[in-house]
């Protein structure tokens, strides 16, 4: 009788197993739910991950180089300016002319001290201390530059550089230079020892001088006195190595070094990127040794009694635009200024220009930015800018952006996601090692610029403004079309419907339509709105065609198609809202003698509006995110002007995301992520509005 029902121990077993099964399945259900929530978080995190990160940018021209070129030209081409690579010549000429002014290295000043007078800049005189400490504006380091390969050969190059480093402090002060900081000199010594594998004491023994050996040195005239003195000392020490020393400017010297024409370059400034690259191309690794410090003195003739101290701005004016001394300070005489400056290859000129005019592009005054645009941008483009808004009325920020966009021409080489940027730095470092001209920048891809810039085919400048405006226009048309029609249809079905076969058909129809894939609506829109109704949608009927498009692929067609798409949803929603209004309201209204339409308009609708509104907002947010139907209708792929009305070409935010995601370059993935954030924020706002409305007007009857 009790065969099927377990008893005793079996019963306990049975119960235990049942309970275990219950716990197992319950945890499974819980796991599934957590998985669901996890998926959402992962989705959002992925998008955030791609919207922040490091970016490797390469500029066509480095901003510092751009500025240096620009200001150098201003100085060299100023009126009444003479140049020479020979500082001695400059000093002599200034000493001979009462209204002359110029600049060169402190060492040359010493040699002509009787005919010249140095000036203070910003109140600081060019004393040895001021130069050594860097307080003086124009103090700069001096270098010997050679190649690691030459040093490793332990030949004359290694010998001479070691000797130089060893002996330099005994010569500098007497010649008018300033010592290099002890730390720097020690560092140079250590670098030299590491490259050659020798110490200064052992260098003589290891020196292998062959009879054919010679040493060629080219470079800055600033270093001439020091180097010539060093060679003389070497001779006094009994070394008869043939050495040739030529001036010609730091640039000439470094170029000769990198081409193999010189063993050592004399430099009065650090290497620039282009020079480093040129060396690397010839498989040479340059190495620079700091040997001394020098000050560039601005000198006037000793008979010049009116000037003692100059501000930076006055220095700028004095060497570029001023034609007469009184142009700088009205109290000065109105004699013409005669300028003597080092030539274009001179490192002295480079340092002077960099210190006096600055090398931060963003800090430059507006006139400089405008001048840069005028020099580097083609005439046609300039004219277009002027027509849009004259350059001198634009803000500093705008001009800076223009210069960056049109002159510096940054190109994004590679981007990294936030996770990679933080955790996988070695990947980034490896990339930078093989692309040294690239700059690293941490970028937030969603910026105000991103939202307000129009579409562009270059990821550096692309923005979503065109897409957002297109989306807003399309959704507006959708709204204007589908909400009245949808609500009207719902009113008919609920209030006037008689349940006959026609109304049943309509109801079934609407339920069917809600399940049709959105792309089918796109094809419907293509055939009907774009092709068949082309005169209407292109605006030809109204004579309002957009000049850039003569066909029906317009915002109007897109809006109507999306309107058809969300119509079933709006109808179903509105019906629910209308149905929720209690019958009592209607009956009371009829009892007072109102007609059907009066009842609907004055009683039913006002009470149903909150529900209708909520449903419509949700439907609109669905339309906002639709992509497939609009692609089929023919959203434009390359559109750079904002839509001007219902008859313009269009693109929308989701379509923009689709296009960017489909491109292979890494930067476009980041742009797509940023656009997704914008889209989600907009949708969130819409949905939040719907929820707020629902909560506010929720009334139970």
């Amino acid at each position: 009788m009790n065969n099927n029902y377990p008893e005793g121990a079996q019963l306990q077993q049975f119960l235990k197993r049942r309970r275990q099964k219950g716990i197992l399945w319950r945890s499974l259900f819980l796991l599934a739910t957590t998985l669901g929530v996890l998926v959402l978080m992962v989705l959002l995190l992925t998008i955030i991950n791609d919207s922040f990160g490091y970016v490797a940018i390469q500029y066509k021209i480095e901003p510092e180089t751009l500025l240096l070129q620009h200001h150098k030209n201003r100085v060299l081409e100023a009126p009444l300016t003479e140049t020479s690579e020979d500082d001695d010549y400059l000093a002599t000429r200034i000493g001979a002319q009462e209204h002359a002014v110029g600049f060169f290295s402190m060492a040359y000043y010493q040699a002509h001290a009787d005919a010249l007078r140095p000036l203070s800049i910003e109140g600081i005189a060019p004393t040895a201390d001021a130069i050594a400490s860097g307080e003086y504006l124009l103090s700069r380091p001096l270098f010997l530059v050679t190649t690691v390969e030459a040093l490793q050969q332990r030949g004359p190059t290694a010998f001479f550089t070691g000797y130089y480093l060893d002996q330099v402090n005994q010569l500098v002060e007497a010649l008018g230079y300033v010592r290099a900081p002890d730390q720097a000199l020690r560092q140079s010594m250590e670098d030299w020892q590491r490259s050659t594998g020798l110490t200064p004491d052992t260098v003589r023994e290891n020196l292998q001088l062959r009879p054919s050996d010679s040493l060629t040195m080219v470079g800055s005239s600033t270093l001439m006195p020091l180097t010539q003195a060093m060679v003389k000392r070497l001779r006094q020490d009994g070394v008869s190595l043939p050495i040739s020393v030529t001036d010609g400017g730091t640039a000439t010297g470094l170029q000769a070094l990198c081409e193999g024409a010189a063993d050592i370059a004399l430099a009065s400034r650090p290497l620039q990127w282009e020079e480093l690259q040129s060396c690397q191309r010839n498989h040479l690794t340059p190495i620079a040794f700091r040997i001394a410090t020098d000050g560039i003195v601005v000198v006037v003739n000793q008979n010049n009694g009116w000037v003692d101290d100059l501000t930076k701005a006055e220095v700028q004016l004095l060497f570029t635009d001023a034609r007469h001394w009184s142009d700088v300070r009205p109290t000065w005489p109105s004699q013409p200024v005669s300028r003597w400056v080092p030539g274009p290859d001179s490192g002295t000129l480079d340092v002077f220009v960099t210190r006096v005019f600055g090398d931060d592009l963003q800090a430059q005054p507006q006139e400089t930015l405008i001048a840069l645009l005028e020099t580097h941008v083609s005439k046609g483009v300039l004219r277009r800018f002027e027509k849009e808004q004259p350059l001198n009325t634009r803000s500093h920020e705008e001009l800076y952006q223009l210069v960056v966009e049109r002159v510096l021409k940054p190109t994004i080489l590679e981007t990294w996601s936030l996770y990679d940027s933080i955790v996988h730095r070695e990947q980034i470092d490896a990339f930078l090692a093989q692309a040294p001209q690239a700059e690293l920048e941490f970028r937030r891809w969603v910026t105000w610029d991103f939202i307000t810039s129009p579409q562009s085919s270059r990821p550096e400048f692309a923005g979503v403004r065109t897409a957002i405006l297109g989306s807003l226009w399309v959704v507006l048309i959708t709204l204007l079309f589908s909400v009245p029609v949808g609500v009207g249809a719902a009113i008919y079905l609920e209030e006037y419907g008689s349940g006959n076969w026609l109304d049943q058909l309509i109801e079934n129809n609407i339920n069917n339509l809600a399940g049709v894939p959105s792309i089918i609506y796109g094809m419907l829109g293509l055939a009907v709105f774009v092709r068949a109704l082309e005169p209407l949608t292109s605006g030809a009927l109204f004579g309002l065609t957009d000049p850039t498009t003569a066909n029906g692929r317009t915002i109007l067609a897109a809006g109507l198609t999306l309107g058809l798409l969300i119509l079933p949803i709006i109808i179903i929603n509105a019906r629910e809202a209308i149905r929720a209004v209690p019958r009592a309201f209607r009956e009371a209204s009829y009892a007072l003698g109102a007609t059907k339409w009066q009842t609907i308009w004055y009683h039913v609708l006002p009470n149903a509006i909150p529900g209708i509104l909520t449903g419509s907002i949700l439907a609109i947010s669905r339309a906002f995110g639709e992509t497939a139907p609009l692609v089929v209708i023919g959203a434009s792929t390359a559109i750079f002007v904002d839509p001007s009305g219902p008859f313009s070409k269009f693109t929308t935010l989701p379509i923009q995301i689709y296009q960017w995601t489909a491109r292979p370059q890494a930067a476009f993935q980041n742009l797509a992520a940023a656009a997704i954030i914008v889209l989600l924020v907009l949708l969130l706002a819409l949905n939040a509005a719907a929820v707020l409305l629902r909560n506010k007007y929720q009334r139970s009857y």
Partner: protein
Amino acid sequence: MHAPIDLATNLKKQRRWGETLIQGLLFTFAALSILTTVGIVLVLLSQAWHFFARPEVSLLAFFTDSKWQPQIGRFGIFVLINATLLTSIIAMLVALPLGMMIAIYLSEYATPRVRSILKPVLEILAGIPTVVYGYFALTFMTPILQQLLGRDVVEVFNVASAGIVIGILILPLITSMAEDALSAVPYALREAAYGLGATRLETALKIVTPAAMSGLTAAFIVAISRAIGETMIVAIAAGAGPRNFNSWGEALHNLAMFNPFKAAETMTGHIVRISGGDISYESIDYDSLFAIGLTLFIITFVLNLLSRRIVRRFREVY
């Protein structure tokens, strides 16, 4: 003082033109939906007719050819349908178990507080546009699959990541419809089961779920229909070209046509790709799109009818 109203006047006979006008207007609005359906059917049929009427296209080849390559005049739709089915099946494999479990949890186990957190989360998932899911599939799902199974197994564009993400897309749909169906089962049934000593699990699986079967089946079919019609995820992540084979033998060799880790274009993906480019209105490419569209429409229409018939037939009236 007004003159008294002559009660003999028959107010009913008073014609109100405004009322009739408004009623007519509202009727046209409602009838617009019929117009839409008629429009869809007409457009698809007529353009598809254009397509099949061409001499180089045969109806038989349309269904039996193993290639879809318009450039050489091969129009076998089955490769596209195959890809669509693959993505949809993968999507259902992901979404159905997960969705059912979440729905059972929500309706049978969850406290009101948990429900109040979970339901908005599901609503948020449901509101995310499909392009975002497409982006997710390409930038997250595919690399994960490649890491798990190796780059030589999983191509950059593959059916599996699109399928899985479509599954995530329809998950909220299944969950909410299933949960509605389960909640609609009257509590009395559950109480009866508890009264007889059933555990919560047994009640949920053996009593409530079968009772809600019509709603669950409807949910299942609606979800599949949505998965089939999904466009953007497959357009971004599944591939930009149909998985063609020279013959059915080659297709079945090593089950190559069922490999989910290689690229394959679905019906919807193909339509989007072709219409996104330059296409002239009289070309065979244009017409072929509508043939595909017609097939798609028929499939989803049939599924829709099926779901409503099942719901009507098996609906338990309590």
